[in-house]
């Protein structure tokens, strides 16, 4: 093993891993508040990328375009919840999961009809495209991905630990009735969780699109990866999303280099299955699951 190769793979792995972590975080937040898997999560990622690309074409500023896309997607998350989850008379996790599949299909076709079928993109956040040192080559956008993900995760940590709203969200996830009794507006926590999930997904989309381009049909793939990362780290856990995302990203990077890039996805999923068999609650998850 060559040291430079290992460092190079680490950088690549942590880069994609950060993206997976953001998507997994979105999954976990919605899972915590509804008990459902949100299949629309991946669609939000590419939708943000596409909106940012379209905005960039008109306002010609990457930063502003990304900001607009992320804000718009947060609103899309809120509207989605109000349109399809809120009207349910007897919501349950299975129904919400199924509804989210319908939501994903509608979101995808909306993207196709309004934003087009062509893959779109925009330049990275920095003028210089890549830096080379000690025999390795790092794209500057990857560094932006590290930085923005770190800042966002820190912000999320503060939000859940310090802010009243974050605490209310956690309380409602832990025990709805008790939270309602102490004055938490439980009905709005589901909407809030959709807003946070869309925000996290959109952020991932906005920062990865300069590297991968965005096209309307990539959403499902992002969603599955994020879901896998969430399961790998432990569903419903915030640090779990980070650990799961990074583990999946590194697994893919090293697996495709040392074993086979053709079988990259198969390797990642095989390891994931093994982890599930050995540690069902995920790497960081608490053993909430009842073994029978």
């Amino acid at each position: 093993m060559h040291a430079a190769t290992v460092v190079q793979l680490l950088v690549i792995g942590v880069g994609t891993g950060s993206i997976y972590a953001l998507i997994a975080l979105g999954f976990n937040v919605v899972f915590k508040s509804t008990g459902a898997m949100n299949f629309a999560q991946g669609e939000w990622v590419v939708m943000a990328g596409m909106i940012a690309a379209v905005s960039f074409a008109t306002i010609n500023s990457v930063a502003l375009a990304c900001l607009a896309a992320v804000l718009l997607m947060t609103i899309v998350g809120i509207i989605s919840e109000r349109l399809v989850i809120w009207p349910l008379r007897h919501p349950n996790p299975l129904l919400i999961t199924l509804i989210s599949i319908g939501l994903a299909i509608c979101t995808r076709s909306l993207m196709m009809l309004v934003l087009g079928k062509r893959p779109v993109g925009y330049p990275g956040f920095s003028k210089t495209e890549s830096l080379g040192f000690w025999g390795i080559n790092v794209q500057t956008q990857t560094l932006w991905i590290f930085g923005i993900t770190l800042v966002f995760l820190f912000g999320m940590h503060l939000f859940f630990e310090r802010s009243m709203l974050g605490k209310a969200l956690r309380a409602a996830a832990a025990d709805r009735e008790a939270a309602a009794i102490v004055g938490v507006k439980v009905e709005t926590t589901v909407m809030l969780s959709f807003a946070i999930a869309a925000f996290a997904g959109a952020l991932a989309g906005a920062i990865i699109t300069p590297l991968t381009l965005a096209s309307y049909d990539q959403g499902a793939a992002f969603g599955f990866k994020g879901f896998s990362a969430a399961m790998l780290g432990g569903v419903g856990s915030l640090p779990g999303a980070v650990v799961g995302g990074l583990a999946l990203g590194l697994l893919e990077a090293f697996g495709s280099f040392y074993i086979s890039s053709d079988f990259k996805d198969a390797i990642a999923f095989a390891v994931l299955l093994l982890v599930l068999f050995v540690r069902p609650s995920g790497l960081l998850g608490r053993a909430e699951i009842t073994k029978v």
Partner: protein
Amino acid sequence: MACAPLMNGTRASSHPAGGDQRRLNHTAGRSAAPLLPDHWRLLLFWLVLLTVPFAAPNEYLVSLANLFLINVILIASLNLLMGYGGQISLGHAGFFGLGAYVSGILSAKVGLSAWIGLPAAMLATGLAALVIGVPVLRLRGLYLSMATLGWNAILVVMFNRLVELTGGPNGLLGVAPFSIGGFRLDTDLREFPLVWLVSLLVMLAILHVLHSRFGRALRAVATNELGAEALGIDSARTKLLFFVLSAGMAGIAGSLYVHINQYASPETFSISNSILYVVMVALGGSGTFWGPVLGALIYTAVPQLLLDYEDAELMLFGLGMLIVLIAFPRGLAGVPAALRDWHGGRQARPT
């Protein structure tokens, strides 16, 4: 906003099992119908289907009927696990594909008859389900979904990459059709009786197993796992049995599919299709016997009906799905009951 207070309590439960159980209580109660009428209604419906080749104006419609019957097997077998057992598999298309490729490769590469391929496909998928199910089904919640999703993803990679065996992305060619003596079942009209018979047998098997001791055990486990355990039901083994059964039936469907089309390609067995099967179970009516027939009808007919709308097809399908699920969460088979409920006034929901 009259319904807002009702929603607070069950808006979303923090525990994944809570909501499922309430819903399954409903379905378990409704499906406890007497044995004989269901059997007769099934036979009657399949007899009516037998007229399709005579009534169909062209062979294309017969090919759609074949596809419909294969979809019935797929969606009914998934419903067995999902509707009655409360376990969501996101790998049903993967099992379908495994059956297709096992049977197809045995025919195209080894030269074995389709009549050997069919049971081989069933055994292979059943065995695969056993291997995945043993560690996973001891656990509740999302774990079967995740494991089957991963399994499907691995299978699709294998179908694409093991080119020498599967033909890769170009698909598996050279699969022989079913044949009796020298009579090759290689037109839609000739295939129809076989698909008709196999789908009828599968539906009868499902009906039979639901009314057996195992079917009652499954419903008990889905309703209340601890309660079922207290009655001496081995819940893990019951769930495993139905997972294996359901996968085996998908394997049968795969074998039929590959020998009828004499071809298989990886995208037919994608995770997206697995998700669509789950959607069809829900749209038709999860946990009802006739729901999957409705689901298969939607799955077969809607793409044909929406063909003219091209780009808007996906949007129309998604919107239709959302409207049905929001208005009739129990699916189309639950529409009569839902209408009765509305008519009978909005009383407090059952707890």
